[in-house]
């Protein structure tokens, strides 16, 4: 193990993405904000989230990873308690039919965002301790799967299939990185995919989303509306876009225009050039993140870094694929770019941990 500088290129990609996010929220949110009277309402709040996020990033950078490892079980238990709180009436808040928020004084807090992070932390700890034991299905892989399955089940209950899938896939990535047998993993993947299919058919709203995904033009004013409005935004952007601030779709045609679907507005205003730049930045972000994992000083750091970069990249991929119509609609924001409190703070905190890991590398032959 040796001390080295933090990965500034990785930090740069994150700064670039958050800057793009801020600019796009500046462009896309005033239409909605005007309804409350202040066109800068969401921008002001997002700036506050960014300040909190970068404080969290600094905190993540300075935190003692050894202590973090030691406390990971209790941190996980704490976040699990918070997650269960959303089901208690009076504490949890329902938005659009989903119990995902806890009202704090000035900010609504989403425990499901936090549990993604603490889950990764716990898994990194357990997998690091387990070492080669992961190849044993009954003593190693099996119990972990039960844990992941239980958490995913709670989140599906909210209901938030998108987050559950994110947790499931991130855990899968970590198991893979930890050296689980490919045969076992393909079994798990098969069960997971089957589970998603079953869940899609057992809930009316999930099924509608699936149908809309398969043929949005069948009912453009109904179930297909959201995805079609997104495609109209993206497609009408063309090569160079309509120009920053010139989106038409942001005027209440496209719902969630500055949260989950902000990338559509970005593509409309900045065109293919803007969209490709964001995809390029995420590739660069993923590449540097994977490099941090590969160079991490020990197994815990390696697994933690893999989990975090895998989670953030996977969220980005899922969000982008939804916006361009390659996946059915799920409620996943675009990391660093979408408006949001909990997600912004937690992703930047994760970046802080990744930078922390990047500052202590191992010797590579």
């Amino acid at each position, binding site marked *: 193990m040796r001390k080295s500088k933090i990965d500034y290129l990785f930090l740069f990609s994150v700064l670039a993405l958050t800057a793009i996010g801020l600019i796009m929220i500046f462009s896309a949110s005033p239409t909605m904000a005007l309804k409350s009277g202040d066109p800068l309402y969401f921008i002001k709040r997002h700036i506050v989230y960014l300040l909190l996020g970068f404080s969290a990033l600094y905190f993540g950078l300075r935190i003692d990873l050894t202590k973090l490892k030691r406390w990971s079980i209790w941190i996980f238990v704490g976040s699990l308690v918070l997650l269960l709180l959303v089901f208690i009436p009076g504490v949890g808040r329902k938005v659009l039919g989903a119990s995902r928020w806890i009202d704090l004084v000035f900010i609504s807090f989403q425990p499901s965002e936090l549990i993604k992070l603490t889950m990764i932390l716990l898994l990194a700890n357990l997998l690091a301790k387990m070492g080669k034991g992961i190849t044993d299905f009954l003593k190693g892989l099996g119990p972990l799967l039960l844990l992941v399955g239980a958490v995913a089940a709670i989140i599906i209950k909210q209901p938030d299939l998108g987050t559950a899938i994110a947790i499931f896939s991130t855990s899968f990535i970590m198991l893979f*990185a930890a*050296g689980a047998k490919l045969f076992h993993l393909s079994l798990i993947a098969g069960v997971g995919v089957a589970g998603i299919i079953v869940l899609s058919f057992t809930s009316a709203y999930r099924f509608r989303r699936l149908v809309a995904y398969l043929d949005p033009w069948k009912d453009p004013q109904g179930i297909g509306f959201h995805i079609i409005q997104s495609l109209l935004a993206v497609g*009408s952007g*063309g090569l160079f876009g309509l120009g920053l601030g010139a989106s038409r779709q942001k005027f*209440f045609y496209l719902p969630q225009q500055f949260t989950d679907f902000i990338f559509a507005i970005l*593509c409309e205003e900045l065109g*293919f050039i803007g969209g490709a730049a964001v*995809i390029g930045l995420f590739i660069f972000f993923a590449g540097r993140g994977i490099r941090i994992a590969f160079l991490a000083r020990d197994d815990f750091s390696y697994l933690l870094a893999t989990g975090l970069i895998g989670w953030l*990249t996977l969220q980005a991929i899922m969000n982008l694929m939804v916006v361009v119509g390659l996946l059915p609609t799920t409620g996943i924001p675009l990391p660093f770019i979408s408006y949001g409190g909990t997600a912004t703070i937690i992703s930047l905190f994760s970046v802080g941990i990744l930078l922390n890991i990047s500052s202590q590398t191992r010797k590579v032959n």
Partner: protein
Amino acid sequence: MQDRQRVYVLLLIFILLLLSVLVRLINLQIFNHSFYVGKSQDQHTRIIELAAQRGDIVDRNGNILSTSIDTYSLYKYKHGWLARKLPLAEAEKIREQEPLKIALLKEKKRLYPKERVAAQLLGFVGLDNQGLSGVELSFDEYLCGKKGRLVTEGDPSGVELYGALRVLEAGEEGMNITLTIDENIQYVAEREIEKQIKKYQAISGTVIVMDAETGEILALASKPDFDPNAYKSADKRLWHPRVVDPFEPGSTFKTITTAIALEEGVISEETMLEAKDSITVGGRVIKNSHAINWPDSRITISKMLEESINTGAVQIGLKLGPEKFYNGIKKFNFGSSTAFGLYGESKGIVNHWQRWHKPDIAMITFGQSIAVTPMQLLAAFSAFTNQGEIVKPFLIKKIESCDGKFVKGNARQLWGRAVSAKVADQVKKLLQNVVEIGTGKLGRITGFSVAGKTGTAQKASPGGRGYLQGHYIASFIGFAPVKDPKVICLVIVDDPRGKYWGATVCGPVFKDVVEYSLRYLNVKPDVL
């Protein structure tokens, strides 16, 4: 862990997935760009139609009869129109209640500054300034202009986008129409007929003054009427210009019968007719409408017209026979629309002689069993003032574009020869006798020689069979000065009570209107 290389497999998968998004972007933004642009524009493009300024209607001297002014309308999203065509102050007051939700739009409102003057003739327009009756309807295509369009962009609730791209496609203003009507003669005609309708408690009355030489209609008065500024509150039956409808002309038609007989040579000015109180034709007993004081057993043609003797006219008809009579009537263009200008003009009812009932040959000689429009009758009489040739009556002098360019117009147009110049002259003299010593005395005008004929027709039953007892259509048609006629005037009063003779009811109106017209038109008096 020994297998850290596995993370590069992950990276490869991530990159492939992100590249799939990139490929999708190429597909959406480059290859299908125009499709999505089209769809997006379809849903946010808002087209606002801008009503064109409607053309004005003016009289022959340019006096405005119908024009448009700015008014203000209030529109509320999802509620539609709140109020339309209000004065600005009133509209702003309502809008103040919910300034964000109510839009103020400028709209043109049709205004008839002379109110009831020529109301049935001018007609009126609907709420969207579309012509609904009269000249407004008949010449809507010229008056309405071409609508403009404002193409802009709006959000789903209809609010215009901030920074919306606006494209204004200018419309075209409507054309202005100049009528042949003279506002002053029109006014006098209306005043006089209204007075008489009141006096005799009649259903309605019509006065038409036509330039005897050119066929220009100088006045077309029809009462009762309505205020076109408030047409909605009027009796709907009054909206219809009754001048386009046919009526049985009665004794004025004896003039036509006589002219045809003279033209055909079956009678001459010297022909004597038998003095008869009644005559039977086809099984029908025809009596005179009033007791005649017979000075002799025979009467002249002139006496027949002067005293309006039915039995005399019937004898002329019998001399003519159905075929000649019918062909003569057709030469006077009865049964053909004059196309003088108003929409919905009747052709009248002139049956072919082979389909006449047996008494028809007699009835038609004094203007029953035949229906004509007032315009047809005027046109027919123009033959006597134009050496036997009919001039076509017309209402539209010219149509000009909003910038004053001539588009189309009408001028004197001959419409066939009815009789020879000689016969026309003979009829003029006969008609002059009617006014000077006959039933038309009330039509005499100091300073001018006048020719004319009265008519008192029995009203046909609404069912079309037989006549209504005690209900008449009184009329008077004539022209002056006789030698070189300037105006032809027809007065019709429908169902006068008390006195019903055309002479009594319509004569004074004829006299007042023609007298005014001649003096107004600066016509030189020709007699003491």
